[in-house]
């Protein structure tokens, strides 16, 4: 009995020693930093979520392949925790909470559409966790609506609606020489609503008149009544700041009712699914975008080639912005004093010039909104073609 016990104890000590030694040798490779990603994989705009997810995975694969990220002298592998918000505000808040409290991610990238980004940003701000949204343009995302002051922990990789409204209004009055615009937008979605209202303000300031300002609700299919009203107001152009799934229905119904005016869109049009759903009804339409694949800079061309090789299609603006958002986050991690949420946030705020796929990105002190230029695109023969740039 005594002999068996001593043999057993010896075995225990020896195996523990092996395990400890083994642990020590493996530790650097196991150390990982978790980044949460919230994207719209199901719901109204799955193409947006898919693009974003691909770009995020591409960025992480590239960084891990190059040896990971070095934070405060230690190397870390980046792990993505991917969550779906189904393009719904309540689900966005729920998964943001889960990522922060259960998965303990160091930062969150996404959601893309403002309707999800705004609630997720609220959760992130309340939990002192960095959140960077690639695509949300509604100013409310980075703003504390109660005080009007910018949020501390929320950043974005793209320009905002006020700028986009100015760009489009300027393009319509300046280049298209049109004075009468009709607007049809989704009153239940944050980005289209703010874009419509800001567009109206800017367009009227530039001397144009908004002859019809019609609304619908998310999920509506029949726009015949609103389009008939628009038709009777006789506009020169029709502004449709809608997501790609709605544009298809609205544009087709408009053409069918005999409305042949030029259509103008927002950056929400930029999905490759747009022409698939809208077919010929959007031919010749113009819209604002974050980048144009056909006038890419060398940085952009590298990204476009890598994306095309891995996924077989040209990346859209959501993909490009997500890639930049991940890049910004890696930069923030590199300059952070420790792999902790507060340090990463400070690292992000200190970025003074990041050469992104979508252009040079810098955050002014105290603001989570970068100053960037926009591009105007046109749908020509079913493809997106660059028309002009618009600098702030």
């Amino acid at each position, binding site marked *: 009995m005594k002999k068996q016990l001593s043999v057993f104890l010896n075995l225990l000590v020896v195996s523990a020693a092996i395990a400890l030694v083994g642990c020590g040798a493996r530790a650097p490779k196991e150390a990982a930093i978790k980044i949460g990603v919230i994207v719209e994989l*199901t719901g*109204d705009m*799955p*193409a947006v979520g898919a693009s974003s997810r691909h770009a995020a995975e591409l960025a992480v694969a590239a960084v891990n392949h190059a040896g990971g990220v070095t934070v405060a002298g230690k190397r870390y592998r980046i792990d993505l925790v991917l969550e779906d918000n189904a393009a719904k505000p309540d689900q966005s808040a729920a998964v943001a909470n889960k990522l922060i409290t259960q998965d303990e991610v160091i930062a969150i990238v996404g959601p893309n559409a403002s309707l999800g980004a705004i609630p997720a940003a609220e959760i992130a701000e309340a939990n002192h966790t960095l959140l960077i949204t690639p695509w949300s343009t509604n100013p409310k995302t980075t703003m504390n609506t109660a005080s009007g002051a910018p949020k501390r922990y929320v950043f974005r990789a793209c320009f905002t609606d006020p700028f986009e409204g100015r760009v489009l209004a300027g393009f319509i009055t300046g280049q298209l020489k049109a004075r009468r615009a009709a607007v049809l937008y989704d*009153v239940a979605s944050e980005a289209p609503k703010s874009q419509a209202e800001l567009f109206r303000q800017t367009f009227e300031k530039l001397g144009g008149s908004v002859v019809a300002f*019609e*609304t*619908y*609700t998310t*999920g509506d*299919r*029949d726009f*015949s*009544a*609103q389009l*008939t*009203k628009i*038709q*009777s*107001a*006789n506009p020169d152009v029709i502004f449709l700041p809608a997501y790609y*799934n709605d544009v*298809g*229905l609205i544009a*087709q*119904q408009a053409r*069918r*009712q*005999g409305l042949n005016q030029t259509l103008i869109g927002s950056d929400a049009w930029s999905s490759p*699914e747009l022409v*698939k*759903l*809208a*077919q010929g009804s959007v031919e010749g339409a113009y819209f604002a975008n974050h980048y144009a694949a056909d006038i890419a800079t060398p940085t952009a061309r590298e990204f476009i080639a890598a994306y095309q090789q891995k996924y077989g299609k040209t990346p859209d603006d959501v993909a490009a912005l997500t890639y930049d958002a991940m890049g910004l986050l890696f930069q923030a991690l590199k300059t952070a004093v420790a792999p902790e949420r507060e340090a990463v946030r400070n690292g992000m705020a200190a970025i003074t010039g990041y050469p992104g796929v979508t252009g040079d990105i810098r955050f002014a002190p105290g603001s989570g909104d970068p100053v960037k230029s926009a591009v105007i695109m046109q749908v020509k023969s079913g493809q997106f073609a660059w028309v002009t740039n618009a600098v702030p």
Partner: protein
Amino acid sequence: MTQPGIYWLQQILNALQLGSIYALIALGYSMVYGILTMINFAHGDVFMVGAFLCFLAATVLKLPFVLTLLLTMSAAAGLGVLIERLAYKPLRHAPRVSAIITALGVGLFLENLTLAFYPYPQHVPPLLHNVTWRLGGVAFSSLQLIVISLSLTLMLVLDYVVRRTSVGVAMRAISWDKTFVPLMGVPVNLIISITFAIGAGLAGAAGTMYSLAYPVIDPYMGIMVGWKAFIAAVVGGIGTIRGAVIGAFILGGVEIMVVALLPSTYRDLVVFSLLLTLIVIRPHGILGAPRVQKV
């Protein structure tokens, strides 16, 4: 500004198109309620499946419009009978709640099954070439006219079946009294299946018309449309066929007119308030009659 008369004529056409589609779906709800006193909550999703079948017929099989319509209607009718046999028949003598839950479950099943195949919204290729005529300032879309006339034709055919054929007499008899009618030699189960088949077939037709008019489809499109059609059936008098049609056109008309007169933001608020008021004034619906429960 176009002349008021022309503007209103255009809006009336819009209302008729919308009402026609609601009517085809509302008929299914009414017929099933009339014969089984059960609300088939999966009906809106049968409509959605109809739209996807139309999509498949148009893209994979590349069938012309008439064949697509017939195929979609038959397949939807088959689906309706299948649902009835598998999900509702076993529960015919169970508490009402069980049947309702089952119906909701079937609906969810259909939605998620379709979602598994088609997570992205799909575009249905145009089955008919659209011609837009301008007559005195009004723009007539040929598709709109086809949807309206086809729906009215189907409704007239249904009316004929219900009032002049023996199947129709049997359907009405069963909805009147389920205890003694079988004793008269009426094959109740067969008639119930036929009712489901007709209702689902009409929903399938609605799915095809809908794809013509609104060519972007997704697995959740049946939810809102289904609820609105159900409300239309109740407002018109659930259980009655004429009531379903009247309710649907009232709903379609009010929806369009509200948007025509007020900012479109108020549409659903006004529509549902009006419908609530109608129900309060006439709880059994416009054409519905109170059911006398003889002990």
